[in-house]
C-alpha cells in the first residue's frame, strides 16, 4: 500500500468515520511519516472539537426584534408612498381625461361661461349684503348668546 492512499484516508480515520483495516494498519505501523500524519490529524480533530462555542450577546433578541420592527416600518412607509403615488397618478389621469373630453366636446367653453356666471352672481350678492352686515352680525351674536344661556341652564339642571 502507498502513502498517498493512506494519507487520503487519514482525516476520516482521525474523525472515527473510517476504521483502519488490516492493510492500512500495517502501513501505519511500518511508515513513521503516515503515523505522524495520523497523530497530527487526531490532534487537530481534538482541537476542533474543543473549539469554544461563541456565546450569543445577551441583548441579541431585543436588538434583532428592534431591527425587524424598523425594517417593517420602512417597508410600510415605502408601501404608503407607493400607494399615495398610485392614487395621485390615477386622480391626475382621470382629471386630465375628463378635461380632454370636455375640451373636445366643447364643454369647456360652456363651463367657462358657467364659472363667469357664478362669479358675477356671487359678487352681486356680496354687494347687496355688505350694507346690512352689522345687522346680521348683531343678530348672530344675539342668537349665540341665547343658545349659550340655554345650554348653561340645561347643564345646570342636569347637575
Amino acid at each position, binding site marked *: 500500500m502507498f502513502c498517498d492512499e493512506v494519507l487520503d484516508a487519514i482525516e476520516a480515520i482521525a474523525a472515527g468515520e473510517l476504521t483502519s483495516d488490516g492493510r492500512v494498519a500495517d502501513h501505519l505501523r511500518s511508515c513513521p511519516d503516515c503515523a505522524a500524519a495520523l497523530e497530527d490529524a487526531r490532534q487537530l480533530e481534538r*482541537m*476542533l472539537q474543543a473549539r469554544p*462555542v461563541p456565546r450569543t*450577546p445577551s441583548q441579541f433578541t431585543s*436588538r434583532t426584534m428592534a431591527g425587524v420592527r424598523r425594517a417593517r416600518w420602512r417597508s410600510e412607509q415605502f408601501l404608503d408612498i407607493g400607494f399615495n403615488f398610485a392614487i395621485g397618478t390615477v386622480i391626475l389621469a382621470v382629471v386630465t381625461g375628463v378635461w380632454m373630453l370636455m375640451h373636445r366636446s366643447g364643454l369647456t367653453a360652456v363651463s367657462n361661461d358657467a364659472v363667469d356666471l357664478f362669479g358675477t352672481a356671487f359678487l352681486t350678492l356680496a354687494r347687496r349684503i355688505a350694507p346690512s352686515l352689522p345687522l346680521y352680525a348683531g343678530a348672530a351674536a344675539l342668537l349665540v348668546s341665547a343658545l349659550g344661556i340655554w345650554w348653561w341652564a340645561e347643564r345646570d339642571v342636569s347637575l
Partner: protein
Amino acid sequence: MEAVNERELVERCRRGDEGAFQELVDRYKDLVFALIARTVQDRSRAEDLAQDVFLRIHRGLPYFRGEARLSTWIYRIVVNVCLQDRARPPAGRETVSLDDDGARGRVTVSTPDRRFGDLELRDRLEKAIGRLPAHYRLLVAAHYLQGVQYEDLADAMQLPLGTVKTHLYRAKQQLRRLLETELK
C-alpha cells in the same frame, strides 16, 4: 424542534405574530450566532450578520413553502450571508499569516505552561481557519457545532452528502498543512 411545532411556529410568524417570531429568534439565535462568529471571527461583525440572517428570515417567511426543514432553510441563509460577507473582505483580514508568529518558535502541548500553550495553539488554529477558502471555513465552523448534521450541511449548501464530506476532509488537510510547522 418537532415538525408540528415548527410548522405551527412558522404559520404564526406568517400571520404577523411578533411573539412567534421572537420565539423563533430565541430558538435559533445561539446556533446562528455561533456559526457566523466562528466563520467571520469578529464578534461585532458576527452580530450584525446574525441580525441580517433573522431579517432575511422575517422577509422570506411568507415564501417559505415548508418543503425543507426550517433549520435547513435557516442554515442556507447563514451560508449565503457568510459567503456574501466573504465577497467583500474587510481591511486586514487577508493579511493574517501564520508566519507572523514565526519568531515565537515552536509550541507543543508538552510546554511546561500547558494552558498558555493551549491558548497559543487555539490562536494559531483560528488564524489557520481564517486562511481557508470561505466554504471550507463554513464547513469546519458548522460541523463541529453540536446539532449540525452532515445532511443539514449538504442541504444548506446544495451539495451531495459525499461532496460535503470530501470538502471537510480537504479543509482539514489544508488546516493540517497550515499548522504543520507549529504542531510537529
